[in-house]
């Protein structure tokens, strides 16, 4: 069970002992064959992190567009503000606290295998940045964007009814503390990793974590006013812009090649390069299967093809394959993704029945499909058994749900989570952002 951290650290620190010393020299002189080989690998691995990193960073735009399209006009500017702010905050929090809490490294744990250490991240001198088979900055960047992804998930579910500041404060805690602690258990080589849990790119560590935080938030927060009728009717509040929602989904799909592909963490050998490629293929086809199964099920059950379900289907397929995009044969990836698409079609209405108001469908997509993807790893990865997978899902679920609950309740009791009824009905663009996303009155007219 290689965790994100030791996959790369192990066997390379050793391999680099030599180079580490020679490195400054290396940069100038013509180095010996072995050195070249390792140095080239170092550059390839770093490049993989940087490329994967900017692709995942791009997912922040994907969430922003998806959410901007799925909320009503009166909350679009608010949603955009939340998304650019949360991505910014995630980076700062992960620098100051998150990273070392998640990746303390041997011997630095506050509570061994459970809680890492607290220290802001600093960058080494590039010339001697040879502790690992990749550069320090590229690793931090790649890890950071994952953290931001978890936060993005929360903003979608809670849209249209949570005030800006309490949301942003939650993001600070999520990215600075909650996400890193549970992440350390597996990718930081903590207790879950020791026990054989496996989550390649984060179906559970990233997506379910965001999903749990969103679910608890949705329950504490309650539904949007008018969403559920007195006699249990569900009153749909259709998203304001399907083109943007579609764009957002395509952006996320693109970003996911970085999300899963670069989680191979190395690209400097034939085996690694080929693995990254296989991950691209499986990731793409799992998403495709998610779309197709969602479309077909919609046609069969509802007689029409609901675009928003097709979009959620793509994302559910992606989340489902994220826990293990490497070991499945293509046909297995297709099955895994197709089930993900089906999960969305059936659980979106279910949440409504439970009167849990999830504006963009993030809970079915990221939490439910994330659990599915994590459990099913045992099917295709012979090195993984079902028990630790279940333990991991449950343990992280309990921890994230419980810690989120505390934060949500604290915020509710202090500064309060929800806007006044009038502010909510008027839309938060006016009450909190002070502008409208589409301020003009009718086509081509002056602004009134």
């Amino acid at each position, binding site marked *: 069970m290689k965790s994100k951290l030791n996959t790369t650290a192990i066997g390379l620190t050793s391999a680099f002992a030599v180079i580490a010393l020679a490195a400054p020299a290396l940069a100038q002189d013509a180095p010996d064959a072995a050195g070249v080989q390792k140095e080239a690998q170092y550059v390839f691995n770093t490049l993989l992190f940087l490329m994967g990193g900017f692709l995942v960073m791009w997912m922040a735009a994907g969430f922003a567009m998806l959410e901007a399209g799925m909320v009503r006009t009166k909350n679009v500017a608010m949603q955009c503000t939340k998304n650019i702010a949360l991505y910014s905050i995630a980076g700062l929090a992960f620098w100051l606290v998150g990273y070392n809490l998640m990746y303390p490294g041997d011997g630095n744990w506050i509570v061994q295998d459970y809680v890492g250490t607290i220290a802001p991240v600093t960058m080494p001198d590039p010339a001697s940045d040879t502790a690992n088979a990749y550069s320090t900055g590229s690793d931090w960047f790649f890890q950071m964007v994952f953290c931001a992804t978890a936060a993005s998930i929360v903003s979608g579910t809670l849209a249209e009814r949570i005030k800006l500041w309490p949301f942003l404060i939650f993001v600070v805690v999520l990215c600075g503390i909650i996400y890193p602690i549970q992440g350390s258990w597996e990718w930081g080589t903590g207790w879950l990793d020791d026990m054989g849990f496996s989550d390649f790119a984060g179906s559970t560590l990233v997506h379910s974590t965001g999903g749990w935080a969103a679910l608890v938030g949705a329950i504490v927060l309650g539904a949007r006013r008018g969403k559920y009728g007195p006699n249990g009717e*569900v*009153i*749909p509040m*259709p998203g304001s812009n399907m083109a943007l929602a579609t764009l957002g989904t395509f952006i996320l799909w693109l970003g996911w090649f970085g999300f899963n592909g670069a989680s191979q963490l190395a690209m400097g050998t034939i085996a690694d390069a080929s693995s990254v490629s296989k991950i691209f293929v499986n990731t793409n086809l799992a998403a495709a299967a998610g779309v197709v199964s969602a479309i077909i099920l919609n046609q069969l059950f*509802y007689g*029409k093809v*609901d675009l*928003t*379900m097709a979009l959620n289907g793509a994302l559910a397929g992606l989340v489902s394959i994220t826990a293990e995009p490497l070991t499945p044969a293509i046909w297995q990836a297709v099955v895994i993704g197709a089930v993900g698409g089906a999960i969305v*079609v059936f659980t*979106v*209405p279910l949440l*409504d029945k439970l009167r849990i108001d999830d504006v963009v*469908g993030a809970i079915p997509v990221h939490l439910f499909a994330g659990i599915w993807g994590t459990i099913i790893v045992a099917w295709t990865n012979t090195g993984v058994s079902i028990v630790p997978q279940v333990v991991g899902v449950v343990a992280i679920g309990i921890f994230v749900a419980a810690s989120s609950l505390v934060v949500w309740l604290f915020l509710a009791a202090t500064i309060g989570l929800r806007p006044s009824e009038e502010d909510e009905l008027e839309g938060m663009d006016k009450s909190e952002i002070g502008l409208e996303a589409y301020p003009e009155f*009718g086509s081509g007219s002056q602004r009134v």
Partner: protein
Amino acid sequence: MKLITAIIKPFKLEEVRQSLTDLGIEGMTVTEVKGYGRQKGHTEIYRGAEYAVNFLPKLKIEVVVAETDVDRTIEAIGEMAKTGQIGDGKIFVSGVEKTIRIRTGETDAEAL
């Protein structure tokens, strides 16, 4: 003068405009509206939840004409806007006491 207000199906506008122009009715104001009546809207499914779409997109056209033109105008609109399907819309006639052309200050008949 009378104000003739008609609620029609959006895609019928062009034909109506054409026929009024042919009649020599040289002015019209159109508004985007939604409405319901006999035609009750329908139910849709969004993300698995059924809901009623109560209002349907229509266009409201307003034409102010001289008494003498009222009947021809009504006929023309009624004819062009008709599909025979429910939801074709209504024509309402009401009185206008005064009309002014802003540009020139002309009033009533000259203002049309």
